[in-house]
């Protein structure tokens, strides 16, 4: 029987010995595969704005409204679950022109954003996100929508869909004004959560699309984009949304710390 009372040094030596004996699985040469994936995306020339351009973002809405098979309702937000056959198959349109219209609106400072809105604009205060790279204002039928954009970092992976690290969006939300819908396919997990005591939803998994519709289901804005994992909640008549390739707990921590 082994002696269980190993000294610190002995325990560390055994651990290193165990580690040195692990049968790691054989791995392919990643260099070739990684190069194949990045060839078309040179770092110096990449622009997240281009990645967000509306030409790519308008393609998913076709025919989805009537296809909603199941939905949950949050105040001001409806989230539809659709059958796989309802998902659009139209190919993406060509790359955007040299001067795409920013789908998030026009840049604005935080003070101005707070001045023009009738809801409480709060800002993430989490080291995972850091300082927003830009703030945008976009005017919709329910008033201004404020978006905080964060570029990718070592701890904040770039969204494969948008190329940005995180997007935090705030808008006045009410079921009477508009339905802020979100389509999710079978590859997306939906989970009810609570943010500061308020009802919210966590969506995780395959990319899914946001869109805005009117009360009767008609599309009234073209603010569609592909989203990564998303936390969305409503507080005091305002809808808040965090989109990033982060975990649910990370998103909840960011949400809880917003001031």
């Amino acid at each position, binding site marked *: 029987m*082994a002696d269980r009372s190993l000294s610190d040094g002995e325990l560390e030596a055994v651990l290193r010995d165990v580690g040195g004996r692990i049968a790691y699985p054989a791995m392919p040469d990643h260099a070739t595969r990684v190069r194949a994936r990045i060839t078309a995306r040179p770092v110096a020339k990449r622009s997240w704005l281009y990645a967000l351009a509306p030409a790519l973002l308008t393609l998913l809405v076709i025919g989805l409204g009537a296809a909603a098979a199941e939905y949950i309702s949050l105040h001001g937000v409806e989230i539809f679950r659709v059958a796989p056959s309802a998902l659009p198959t139209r190919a993406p349109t060509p790359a955007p022109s040299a001067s795409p219209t920013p789908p998030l609106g026009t840049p604005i400072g935080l003070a101005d954003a707070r001045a023009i809105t009738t809801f409480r604009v709060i800002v993430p205060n989490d080291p995972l996100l850091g300082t927003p790279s830009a703030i945008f204002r976009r005017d919709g039928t329910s008033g201004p929508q404020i978006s905080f954009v964060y570029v990718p970092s070592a701890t904040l992976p770039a969204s494969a869909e948008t190329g940005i690290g995180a997007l935090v969006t705030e808008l006045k939300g009410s079921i009477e004004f508009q339905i802020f819908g979100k389509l999710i396919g079978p590859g997306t997990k939906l989970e009810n959560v609570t943010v500061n005591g308020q009802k919210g939803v966590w969506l995780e998994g395959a990319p899914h699309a946001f869109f805005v519709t009117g009360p009767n289901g008609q599309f009234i804005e073209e603010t569609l984009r592909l989203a990564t994992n998303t936390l969305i909640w409503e507080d005091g008549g305002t809808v808040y949304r965090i989109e990033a390739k982060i975990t649910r707990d990370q998103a909840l921590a960011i949400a809880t710390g917003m001031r």
Partner: protein
Amino acid sequence: MARAKQGDTAAYGEIVSLHQSVAARAAYLVTGNAADAEEVTQDAFVKAYNALGRFRDDAPFRPWLLRIVTNEALNRLKAVKRRPTVELTEAADRPSGDTALSPEGAALAGEQRDMVRDALAKLRDDDRLVISYRYFLDLSEAEMADALGIARGTVKSRLSRALERLREVMNG
């Protein structure tokens, strides 16, 4: 690195070749699954490339990369809702390091390894992660701090607590 940051994919390929082994081992230690580890490793290198613009030239690349690998692997683990079950059994073709020991000594060393493996399997994931990175990947505390996204002092205390809990499990 400068070339890679300018979009030279061949240069980045060299960086991948240089670091893929440690990245893949880290991914495997977190996910406990070969297929997941392979995907995580590849995704992490692509993400690292996309984030190269934020990488400081004077910083070491390995811990920065491992942080991306770790995040990616933890996200994968969460997505598949599976507890990692890293096979800590010994590689069959690995030459025994016990040849210099007496038969009794070799048997005792083998028992100690089994005991530690059993205890590791019962540890919490975060405890096992910090121990794995320190002793299996042989990362320094500074590298662990970067890779795990925590302060150096926190690395020390977390490692100490993890080893304490390992001992508790071993002592039944």
